């Protein structure tokens, strides 16, 4: 007689060989024990990394004693293409100016060569700062998943900073959306973490490999299925 019910194989733990298994928390939404040693294979977060499991050398301001960061996320690097292209165009413009000047003439003939040179240096300085600020905006937009909490750090336009935190036990539901050809090609999408009660929901925008991220958080909160 064929089997009517076949148990699904258990989801693979993100840290299979360690003495401490995340699956021990199955069915419970309690945070991981603090005093239990957690030995993770450490990975270095590069300057351009957007996804790193068990990052080495990363810490945050409100980190508690013994709290381990399990996942480090930034927006996918493909989201930077727009400002990188704009920067390349801005870098090329002064090179083209002498050719344009040949056709239209010098609009400011009374200015000295020294002034022009200083203006070009200043222009490149502004472009370099534009590059730097855009990179910073991407670099400091971070989501951290620890063994106890989910932390979302939003940083934009130099003046907007928002650090939101929720305990894993308060996470109610997880979902992700990967809409569009570009997102499908580069494999990134938005992850929505719904929290209990009146607490704000978390939205990790343009997170790389959203399936993997959702899977890891599900393991942490003790769920096995979406």
């Amino acid at each position, binding site marked *: 007689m064929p089997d009517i019910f076949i148990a699904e194989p258990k989801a693979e733990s993100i840290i299979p060989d360690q003495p401490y298994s995340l699956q021990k928390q199955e069915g419970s939404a309690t945070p991981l024990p603090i005093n239990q040693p957690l030995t993770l294979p450490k990975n270095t977060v590069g*300057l351009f990394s957007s996804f790193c499991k068990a990052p080495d050398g*990363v810490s*945050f301001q409100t980190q508690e004693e013994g709290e381990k960061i399990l996942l480090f996320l930034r927006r996918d690097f493909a989201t930077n293409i727009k400002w990188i292209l704009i920067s390349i165009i801005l870098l090329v413009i002064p090179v083209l100016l002498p050719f344009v000047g040949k056709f239209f003439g010098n609009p400011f003939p009374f200015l*000295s060569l020294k002034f022009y040179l200083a*203006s070009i240096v200043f222009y490149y300085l502004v472009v370099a700062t534009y590059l730097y600020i855009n990179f910073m905006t991407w670099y400091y937009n971070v989501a951290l998943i620890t063994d106890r909490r989910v932390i979302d750090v939003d940083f934009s336009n130099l003046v907007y900073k928002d650090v939101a935190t929720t305990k894993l036990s308060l996470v109610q539901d997880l979902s992700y959306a990967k809409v569009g050809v570009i997102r499908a090609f580069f494999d990134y999408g938005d992850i929505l973490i719904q929290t209990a009660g009146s607490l704000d929901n978390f939205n990790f925008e343009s997170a790389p490999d959203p399936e993997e991220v959702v899977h890891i958080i599900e393991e942490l909160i003790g769920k096995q299925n979406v």
Partner: protein
Amino acid sequence: MYNFSNLLQTPQINILFKIGFLIANFIFIIFLIVVIREVRTMSTIVSNNNNTSTIKSAILLLFIVAVSLFLTALVIL
């Protein structure tokens, strides 16, 4: 009819351009100071020991170049 190109060739306009350049450069330096402060704040909130020095060095380099340009412009223009 008045020829406006004569107005542009007056020394006053030339000086106006130079003063404008210096003011723009000075405002830019102040802006860079704000950026440095924000980078310091953000690196306190989320610290990555592997890259913090690179990030801070880059903005300090921009700041040094901006100050150098301002001082140079003050002398040569």
